[in-house]
């Protein structure tokens, strides 16, 4: 750091950290939250939606529009990554030798271990996604676990699987954008069926998996979107590794 930056940084840090601490300590003590918003939402989620997980109800129903924005933040960042990592003229491609070399790295046995780990993870994913409105978890967490399931296979199979993935990334991309579009469609569904954007248009049910109105649908859409998005990013970054390797 240059001297000027150090001095500025020091004063700035002291003021900012001190200021935040000073302001926050003016709040009620830790553990004394008392505002009505949280209480109303927490105790309304069961009567309103027969859904026991009020965090998921808040995210996907009371404040669904925030989540729509959030899904599209993810969506556009993946598009951004695709664009920023696009191949330029003169950039070496995914050569067959590279593929072969990467392939040799992965031994047969680790590949099978990866595949073996992936199976249970997929089951866990499905469980987490469909129980989102009832117990901790939901589309978001499930989506990331789905991504990591495939990453497990990738660790086992090293590049082979990811390369195949790159080749089939069209499908991943479609799943991802279908998830994003699906979540938006839930909003439109409310508009068409009930007259208000994001209004619930399915019965809230009584107990079990089919409760929470549109929330299970939202969970599935978000799971697709999140899993697909992270997979695209990982695959793109992996593809970068293979590119430009031309010693």
């Amino acid at each position, binding site marked *: *750091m240059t001297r000027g*930056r150090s001095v500025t*940084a020091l004063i700035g*840090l002291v003021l*900012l*950290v*001190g200021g*935040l*601490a000073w302001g*926050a*300590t003016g*709040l009620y*003590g*830790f*553990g*004394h*939250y008392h*505002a009505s*918003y*949280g*209480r109303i*939402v*927490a*105790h309304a*989620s*069961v009567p309103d939606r027969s859904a*026991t*997980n*009020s*965090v998921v*109800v*808040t*995210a996907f129903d009371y*404040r669904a529009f*925030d*989540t729509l924005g*959030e899904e599209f*933040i*993810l969506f556009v*960042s*993946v598009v*951004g*990554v695709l664009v*920023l*990592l696009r191949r330029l003229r003169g950039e070496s491609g995914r050569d067959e030798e590279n593929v072969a070399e990467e392939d040799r790295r992965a031994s047969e046995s680790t590949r099978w271990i990866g595949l073996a780990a992936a199976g249970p993870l997929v089951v866990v994913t499905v469980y987490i996604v469909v129980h989102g409105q*009832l*117990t*901790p978890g939901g589309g*978001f967490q499930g989506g990331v676990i789905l991504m990591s399931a495939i990453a497990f296979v990738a660790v086992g199979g090293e590049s082979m699987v990811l390369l195949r993935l790159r080749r089939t990334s069209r499908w991943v991309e479609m799943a991802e954008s279908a998830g994003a579009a699906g979540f938006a469609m839930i909003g439109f569904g409310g508009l068409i069926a009930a007259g208000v954007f994001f209004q619930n248009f399915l019965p809230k049910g009584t107990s079990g998996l089919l409760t929470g109105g549109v929330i299970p649908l939202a969970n599935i859409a978000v799971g697709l979107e*999140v899993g697909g998005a*992270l997979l695209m*990013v990982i695959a*793109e*970054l992996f593809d*970068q590794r293979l590119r*430009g390797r031309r010693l």
Partner: protein
Amino acid sequence: MSVYPYIVAAWLLGAGLYGVMSSRNYVHLIICLTVMQASTYVLLLSVGYVSHGKAPIFADIPTNSTVVDPVVQALTLTDVVVEATVVALLLALVVQANKRFNTVDPDAMTRMRE
């Protein structure tokens, strides 16, 4: 002691910010940003905490129990997604910048000016 979480949040902000200012490696800088983001998680969740409150999930507890605020948790969920997107975008930019400049040092990438 009742303000300790707020102090930790302020500390994390400062630590991450110091890292960003002093960083000589963009990968390091990005990780420092995630540390700063941890400060927002800690602050959000601690302002919504209720002493002896339960998680706001009524699967196993009666519907009239005292629970912590679900709203801040929903906000934090959104925040976590933002973390992933910011890291992804910045890494993409850094990987490309490394191709152009052959460096990931933010202070060495000053080709716009002489």
